[in-house]
């Protein structure tokens, strides 16, 4: 009978994101101690700066996957934003005017995905494979094979610069703020609570009065907005706006999110785990590069990590479900 105030149903998720966090910390300690060139400020700022685009897109992607959806078009949206930014800059518009336009464009891209999924009831995997190609194609039409590099210095400095004497990129602070907002939204608001319910049982969520379509539309739209923000950051950070910016970013994001314990079937995971997954993958790749591990081998390692990440939370969950089942059976024997 009632024996309240423990929360084993979140154990598995907590334990898996705990595992990822612990592995990240161990990897960092190990690398600081044993890997030449890892601990210097330049390398660390490269590591974080290169990981930030993945982390930025991982925030809304985590919410999407928790709600049982996915957006594969994020990298193309980022690329399109960068391309439009370059094209408008070439036209002579000011950067202050260009950025809102690009963000609005991201909103539109996300809205298109969201409407196709919620109004027409199409699976998001298929829809966003389609828009992945379409948005990238538009980017190429807009900018051709040009590379725009001559953005204003203060913006380039912000995107590539560091906070004072530290190794932290200046863009890290805004990311921390966005991360905090996302954590609160997912884990502490009715909206976030609804996303978990939608992902784990969409019909039951609907029968409980959750406005499923509206939630999903908002998520896709925000994902588009974040993707375009990332595209702007990317172009400034690398001082290069090209139509093929951020190609393949979506796979890194999804790999990291899954590694962080977000269940591909929806309804499970924590944002902390997802971001730990992002930085774990980023740090692992950085260390391997420093150790002169060939690019091919790096891909193999990343792939193995991914399979482990999809497997790990499931095994953990099965163990905890078996325990919960035994415990429930102990109080109410199920026939």
């Amino acid at each position, binding site marked *: 009978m*009632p024996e309240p105030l423990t929360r084993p149903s979140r154990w598995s998720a907590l334990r898996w994101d705990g595992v990822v966090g612990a592995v990240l910390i161990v990897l960092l300690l190990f690398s600081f101690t044993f890997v030449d060139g890892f601990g210097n400020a330049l390398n660390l700022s490269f590591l974080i700066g290169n990981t930030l685009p993945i982390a930025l897109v991982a925030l809304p992607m985590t919410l999407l996957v928790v709600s049982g959806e996915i957006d594969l078009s994020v990298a193309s949206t980022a690329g399109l934003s960068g391309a439009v930014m370059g094209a408008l800059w070439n036209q002579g518009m000011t950067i202050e005017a260009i950025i809102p336009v690009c963000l609005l464009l991201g909103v539109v891209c996300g809205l298109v995905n969201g409407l196709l999924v919620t109004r027409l009831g199409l699976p998001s995997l298929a829809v966003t494979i389609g828009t992945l190609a379409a948005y990238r194609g538009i980017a190429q039409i807009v900018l051709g094979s040009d590379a725009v590099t001559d953005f204003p210095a203060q913006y380039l400095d912000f995107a590539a610069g560091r906070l004072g004497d530290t190794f932290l990129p200046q863009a890290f602070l805004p990311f921390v703020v966005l991360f905090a907002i996302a954590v609160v939204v997912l884990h502490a608001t009715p909206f976030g609570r609804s996303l978990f319910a939608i992902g784990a049982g969409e*019909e039951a969520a609907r029968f409980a009065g959750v406005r499923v379509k509206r939630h999903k539309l908002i998520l896709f739209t925000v994902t588009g907005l974040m993707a375009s923000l990332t595209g702007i950051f990317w172009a400034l950070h690398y001082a290069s706006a090209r139509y093929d910016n951020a190609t393949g970013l979506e796979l890194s994001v999804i790999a990291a999110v899954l590694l962080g314990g977000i269940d591909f079937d929806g309804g499970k995971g924590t944002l902390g785990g997802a971001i730990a997954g992002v930085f774990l993958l980023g740090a692992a790749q950085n260390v391997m590069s420093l150790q002169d591990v060939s690019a091919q081998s790096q891909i193999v390692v990343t792939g193995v990590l991914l399979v482990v990440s999809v497997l790990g939370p499931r095994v953990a969950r099965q163990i905890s479900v078996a325990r919960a089942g035994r415990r429930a059976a102990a109080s109410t024997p*199920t026939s």
Partner: protein
Amino acid sequence: MTHPSDTGPAPVLALKDVAKSFGAVRALRGVSLELFPGEVHALAGENGAGKSTLIKTLAGVHRPDAGRVLLDGEPVVFHGPGDARDAGIAVIYQEPTLFPDLSIAENIFMGRLPRRAFGRIDHKATRAATAALMKRLGVELDPDRPASGLSIADQQIVEIAKALSFDARVLIMDEPTAALTGSEVARLFGVVRTLREQGAAVLFISHRLEEIFEICRRVTTLRDGAWIATEQVAGMTEDDLVRRMVGRDLDELYPKQDVTPGEVALSVRRLTREGVFTDVSFDVRRGEIVGLAGLVGAGRTEVARAVFGIDRWDAGEVVVDGRPLTSGAPSTAMAAGLALVPEDRRAQGLVMDMSIERNIGLTGLRTTVRAGLMDRGAERSRALDWAIRLQVKYARIADTVNTLSGGNQQKVVLAKWLATGPQVLIVDEPTRGIDVGTKAEVHRLLSELAADGVAVLMISSDLPEILGMADRVLVMHEGRLTAEIARTEATEETVMAAATGRAAA
């Protein structure tokens, strides 16, 4: 334990003093059971009594910790379901598991389809064998029909035919009638009688006691994993059986209180959803329990879904406490004080992978909030409060609901909705598939809610439940409301007449 008086045939399958534990749970403690050829034998007991464990032991899924399984009097050990099947034991589950895209014949002979030269499937032979099985069962089903279009009743027939194709001598039927309509049950019973006459032994499980009395010769009752009695059904009453199952006298199964109805709380006017239901109008007053009867497919669930806003309506109007609702908006229906306990608790009532706490909390996302954030303390105390009030049996409030028994899951669904303080409560098949003890609790709860001034609309295919609980009975037939019958005039005959369209009121 009574045996047939004559020495007669030997039991084809028997359990002798079987015990089975899972960890600390003693699911079966010294249970004995004998199944004779040509006998339909009922297995009765509440949820959690050990029925499923017993079935799984017979089917070779579980091996007993102690005691023996006897086949034709000889001890056997089943190492898996395949062994039991080869021994002629087949289990028909409540929800059949057919391949939807394959034909009936292909489903029956899946994995052992007759072959012609070069390994090609011999469709002709498959069809002929299937037709022969159907004939043996006295059922007309086209062997070429795909399984996807079949009703649950037809799917069960296919499962039975499949069992026969394995030369099953023992058929175990686990709540086969739970999702069937009256006429489908009658046909299933026809098939069962045919099998009985052909010498099969049938072990029959059902929560509907009247079915046990209709078709079974003997009944074995389990309680808390222990064998209670094996008796001839003839001469027993339903009360006797219920007493064996729950170990005490049930207060009435239908504890309906007399309440003077108040003002109209739910008013449905000329509601129409094209092709589904037409021109449905009715009122439910505070303090009333209004039964909504009809055959499965008559449109009752669809009306409930539309009223609550899950589906849109094309014409008409729904008014709750004087406030008209918007079509297709459950959140406005909830805000107006409407609650719907849906028919399918596993898909619609609950998020099975979420905790009891979170499931109950799902209807409180607008109320257990402080400054835009979830108030976890309030969320938890709301969930605990209602779980305790409804006497949900659970280990921890944070356990997922799929660890609970069916009856307790249904209580969580009720808790989730009662926590919203509804003015109008719609319950769709509130006691389907739950044991008789919990059923009585649910009825008492509905009666108390009505007495407190809640307007209750109860959809049920369980006629005794409708007759026992409802102040008025509305009857639907083919998408239309065909009758409104006062409690005093409602009988099985009047309700069924309206439900089958024989008498329009």
